């Protein structure tokens, strides 16, 4: 699949995951922003599945694609274990909306990539391993799939 922008469905899904993490605790200075927390949590099952190198490669590709949609500080990098490095610079951004948008795009791109490789079904199963109770907006195709999967 040769695409640029994250799909609307994945953007919505990414927003849900970030909202879930935000609910878990307020964003305080020095605390990882929701997008970084989501990436960190996803890293555990995905690195188990594909190894650190595999997860790192996927994140690097997602970040490259995200950068074509929203501005990202050059300090933000993907570390060898696949985690996000230099995320503190995100906090220095003037506009928190812009920071959140950057996070949404990165996660959406990551989920889109996963979907293109293993399909929506298996991608969702990986995500629900981490957030089994995450609430998704009704009417969305992914939400419908989740309901089907949890029946």
């Amino acid at each position, binding site marked *: 699949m040769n695409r640029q922008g994250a799909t609307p469905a994945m953007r919505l899904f990414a927003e849900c995951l970030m909202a879930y993490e935000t609910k878990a605790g307020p964003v305080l200075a020095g605390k990882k922003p929701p997008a970084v927390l989501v990436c960190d949590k996803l890293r555990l099952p995905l690195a188990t*599945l*594909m190894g*650190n190198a*595999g997860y790192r490669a996927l994140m690097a590709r997602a970040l490259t694609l995200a950068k074509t949609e929203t501005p990202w500080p050059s300090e933000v990098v993907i570390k060898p274990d696949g985690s996000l490095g230099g995320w503190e610079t995100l906090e220095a951004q003037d506009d928190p909306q812009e920071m959140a948008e950057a996070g949404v795009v990165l996660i959406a791109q990551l989920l889109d990539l996963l979907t293109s490789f*293993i399909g929506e079904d298996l991608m969702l199963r990986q995500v629900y391993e981490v957030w089994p109770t995450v609430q998704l907006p009704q009417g969305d195709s992914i939400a419908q799939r989740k309901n089907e999967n949890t029946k």
Partner: protein
Amino acid sequence: MKTLNKINVAKSALPRKIVSRPAKVAIRQLPTGVRGLDEIMGGGLPEFSFNIIAGAPGCGKTTLAHQIMFANATPRKPALFFTVLGEPALKMLRHQQQYSFFDPTQLNRSIRFINLSSALLKNGLRGVVEEITREVEASSPAIVVVDSYRNVTRKTIAEENELDLQAFVQRLVLLLTSWQATTFMVGEYAEAEMRDNPVFTVADGIFWLSQNVERNSVVRKLQIIKSRGQGSVPGLHTIRITADGLQAYSRTLGLLQEKVRPAKRRRLSSGIPELDKMLGGGILEGDSLLVAGPSGTGKSALATQFLAEGLRHGEAGVAAIFEERPEGYTARAGTLGMDLRTPQKNKMLEMLYLRPLDLSVDETMQEILDAVKRLKAKRLVIDSLVGFEMALAPGFREDFQESLYRMIAALTGAGVTIFTTVETADTFNEMSFSHYTISFLTDDILRLRYVEIEGQLRKVITVVKMRGGNHSKDIREYIIGDKGVAIIGPRQEQYARLTTGLPDRIGQIKELAPEPKAK
């Protein structure tokens, strides 16, 4: 003497339980999830065994491991699939989910994929064992797969010594056996490597997969090189990778237990009363009959009449046809007054059209056997042997006669009567039966041939052989009319040397041509 008596008394006084042999351990067998493989394995996979799945790339090793996992994993006794420096897990999942056996609901619930590359690169064999130990102890898996084990050892051979490798293998086997896991090490190996690799020594089972190219066809084979504790079917078995994953076709076609023919057998009508008389009352049930003759002599018509006669008596039939499509075959039978359409609708007749040029002989025979079992068929037509052989991939043609023999022997042993046609070239100085070594394939042989008589190419039939009893030795003339083959004349006595096709007239009786001559 006194002592001996004492011993005897003592033995007889012992309770039966103590003197009898203690019960052997029962090895439970797990399903492989691969059609035909359980039977090849001698019933299934021995539980808690340590196995190697080896072979060249593209043989289906990973797919086989997946099928075994999906067939056995449960949430309580899950399967762990460790990947090591091989096919990236994402790509593996991308490809494996295309198979019908891949059930996504099992993922993470009863099947887990764990990447060991980092552990291997960082800490070598010790890291791999530690990681596997942690995961195994955490989930008590029923099935463990390491893919590719070869990559683990390759790195070790390069950097560590052989003793380390042996110690690693030993630790792994002890761990996985003690934790009651049935284990599969997947790897790309060449046969020569079996000698020096400790893992082959400790393995309880070795599955060897291979892939050979024969002209334009690919032939995949499976061999169970080793299977401790149970009897597997020896030799090379054909495998095919389909949308359902691997399918295996046993060399024995699942027919090891041949039934013994009953001493008293019925005689089945061929559908042609005069021919039945020539056959001493009909074809003996469970016989294999071969009809040999050149093109256009009515071999298929005879075969159709044989099937139709069975159907009239409520006997289900199967026709494996290779030279004509079922619709054409059915329509042609209709022109001879035989309705094959209704019995097909009523599941009394199945027509198998097997023409792809890549068929394996075992696969084709399995199709036939499945149909015979499905319908509980009493009559089977194979039309024709030449077409059958042509439908096979070149690499399988060498096995053709051997496999055919096995199938015919097994089916006839089970009471199925087989009617096979074979095309022969008519020469006008001899009467050959076929280029196959047929005597061991058939109980009965009918020979059809053209003879030139008074400016016409006429047809004669003779029974060459009937293993089960006496038969007519007459050479009789027949025609193919609107009801099929009909034998029209008594023994032909007006001519000699009919078998050459160019007979000499020796009689004086003036006879009419059986079919009108053109004016």
